[in-house]
């Protein structure tokens, strides 16, 4: 499996950040960057990184299954993550999530047929001070209301 020269360069640099013999520590960032390029954590991608880091495919699978940011299936162009943990829930996170479900016509961990949006109800994303918080791809949005969510999503159609 081959990656873009930019990604290869990024991988090469990443591996220097870990002490000798502990390169496997780079697995999580490698998976994340590769997912951005490939579109999903495919079986080929897992096998490739397993080979590069001298771990078993099963060990890669353990990591992929653990982190909610890693996906085995392609996400929408914009991946909408809405927190419904306690702080967000108290400030309307659950309503926000229900609203998003209706608006996008999809549920938890689903992707629109058009491939534009995918939706996920997530646990705490560390933005409790500005609850309810959502994440659109890597961008955080704070104190989101249903109106604000509509505006954000329409801007991304």
């Amino acid at each position: 499996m081959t990656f873009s020269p930019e990604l290869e360069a990024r991988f090469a640099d990443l591996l220097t950040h870990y002490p000798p013999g502990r390169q496997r520590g780079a697995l999580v960032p490698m998976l994340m960057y590769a997912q951005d390029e490939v579109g999903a954590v495919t079986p080929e991608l897992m096998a490739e990184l397993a080979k590069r880091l001298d771990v078993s495919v099963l060990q890669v699978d353990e990591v992929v299954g653990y982190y909610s940011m890693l996906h085995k299936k392609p996400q929408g162009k914009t991946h909408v993550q809405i927190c419904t943990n306690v702080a967000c829930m108290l400030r309307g996170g659950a309503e926000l999530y229900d609203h998003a479900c209706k608006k996008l016509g999809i549920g938890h961990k689903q992707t629109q047929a058009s491939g534009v949006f995918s939706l996920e109800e997530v646990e705490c994303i560390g933005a409790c001070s500005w609850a309810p918080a959502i994440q659109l791809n890597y961008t955080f949005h704070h104190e989101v209301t249903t109106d604000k969510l509509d505006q954000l999503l329409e801007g991304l159609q």
Partner: protein
Amino acid sequence: MSNMVKLTINETAVEAPAGTLLIDAAKLAGIEIPAFCYYEGMSLQAACRMCLVEIEKAPKLMAACVVPVAEGMIVRTESPAVVKARKTTLEFLLTNHPLDCPVCDKGGECELQDMVFKYGAGESRFTEVKQHVPEKQWSPVVFYDGPRCILCYRCVRVCNEGMGVGALGIVNRGVAAEIAPSHGDHLECDECGSCIDICPVGALTSGAYRYKTRPWEMEHVGTICTHCSNGCKTTLGVRNNEIVRGNNRDRSGVNGEFLCVKGRYAFDFNHHPERLQTPLLRVNGKLEEVSWSRALQAVVEKFKAGGKAGVVGSTRIANEEAYLLQKFARTVLKTNNIDHHRSGDVVTLLDSLSGKTATLGTADDCYNAKAVLIVGADLSQQQPFLANQIRANHRHHKAGIYVATPGAVREDKIAKASARTADGNWLPAVESMAEKLKGEKELLVLFGDSVKGEGVRKLVAFGESLGIPVKYICLVDYANSRGAMDMGLLPDLGPGYHAVEGAPGLTLPQMMAATDLDLLWVVGANPLARHTLASSKAFVVVQDLFLTETAQRADVVLPAASAYEKNGTVTNVCGQVQRLKRGVETVGAKTDLNIIGLIARGMGVNLGKVDADAVFAEIQKTVRGYNVPLPVIVTGGAAQTMPVNGRVPSTVLPELIQSSRDTLFTTGTLTRYSKILNEVMEAPGGLYR
């Protein structure tokens, strides 16, 4: 001792070496701290929260499995706070755990059941519907029932660390977390079943045993596995005269709880439909079922008639049977034409070590030696228990592992140095490691059949040249390969490696090639699988469990009992004598000892009292090295035979020594009749490394 730490557990003063984990210190003092994830010998997990204890001055309950003892520590393991915490932990563990104990294989010997029984989590505050996922089958022997799993990681660790296979992992998180096999939907592994054995609940179940019985309805019979030479204790679970399970949860043998696929599952040959139950006699060219008396009469007549006789013994019959067989051959048939399938050059090793002491390695040495050198053997395939000992030695003691083998082996991963040998020429590979080996404090050398004859002497000379204490283990193939040699199933050596009276007899290939052989008596062996019998006039008597290639040529076939159907002793690859204990009764077969005794009686000769204990008493008296303490054996222990210390006057060509190169999934005739071994996709071995 200065490095002892004093502490108080449950108002009792306890002393433990510094660095001891609290859970172990409590155990030393006879106080049980319950735990699911903690497992002696494995890495620490601290996942299950069952071992929480109260430590004075600590702000909250601590996990005893990861807290080392400290001076003056005051610990309470059953205080109200602790008991409440455990009860809550159990309530959590039971949120999705199905309460299907009445049909669960584990019911009755389940650690979760025991804990709930003790601490009680009789009520649950959860009103949600239990999460359920269907059961999965990962291989013919391994099934996984996710909802029962408590995610203690024991199976993951035993596979990774214990077996060095790493076929199990945990995928997903939270309530969706579950154990996953190496290849998506199935396992490719040793199929050893250690994961099932170690599972504290009924999440991992065995294809051979599941839904067959309740644990308390079995009799448990500790005997020795009849497959490879490692001599693992396997405790047979017997129900209605059928073996339904093999394990060693009580850690009673040399092997602790270790068993490979053969020890754990390959008892099923015993109930194979093709087991011989009736004697067969060749009448008008065809083998016909006859009565024992008629078959024995035919044998007696031929034996009395005399002529040139050859006797082939077995590598899996008991010591008593091997001893009596050679005694019969030498005193009644008056021949030294007696041999067996030899798979390791123990004879030359004993001779080369003549005059030296403490030079024969044991299974314990595999675990304790500071360094181990493996020459020409794929241990994890051929000697699974010794390989396990060596892996544990590396894991616990950081032993230096050195490998000189023809192909890649599992031990390469943990080796300080690995070298490949070509064309059986192992010496350059071994010599290339000499400098490194000289830096070790001591060395244990295990060698396979490529080292034989002069090779053994060269290896011993190499060991001498290192200037460190060196011990040796000569690897052999089968359950009683070592015993067969010790008992004198050899044309030139009698019991205890004494030179025979008179001229040495014919070797196995010579017997096969002799055109004038009148009589061939084969006990528990299948020489015609590899050789052809040149003498067309030979009257062939075969004692075996199955109608092997040799039995098909026989004139009389006498159905023999398996090792699981007899009492006696066997000697493992390291020279440890252990007791076979009868687990099931035979239907029509008789033990080889019994058969030999009946033939002797028919001929009117007196071989002394023919029962296993009496013959063993004779062996103790007459066979060099076998004067071992009887109580050790009788109580199910392993007694080390004394090494023969003196020259061994062998005349036999080492070329005859040939290992079968078995894998984890094969050992000669018996495993051909094991349904389970033939079902696993890894069979016959070598599918993966």
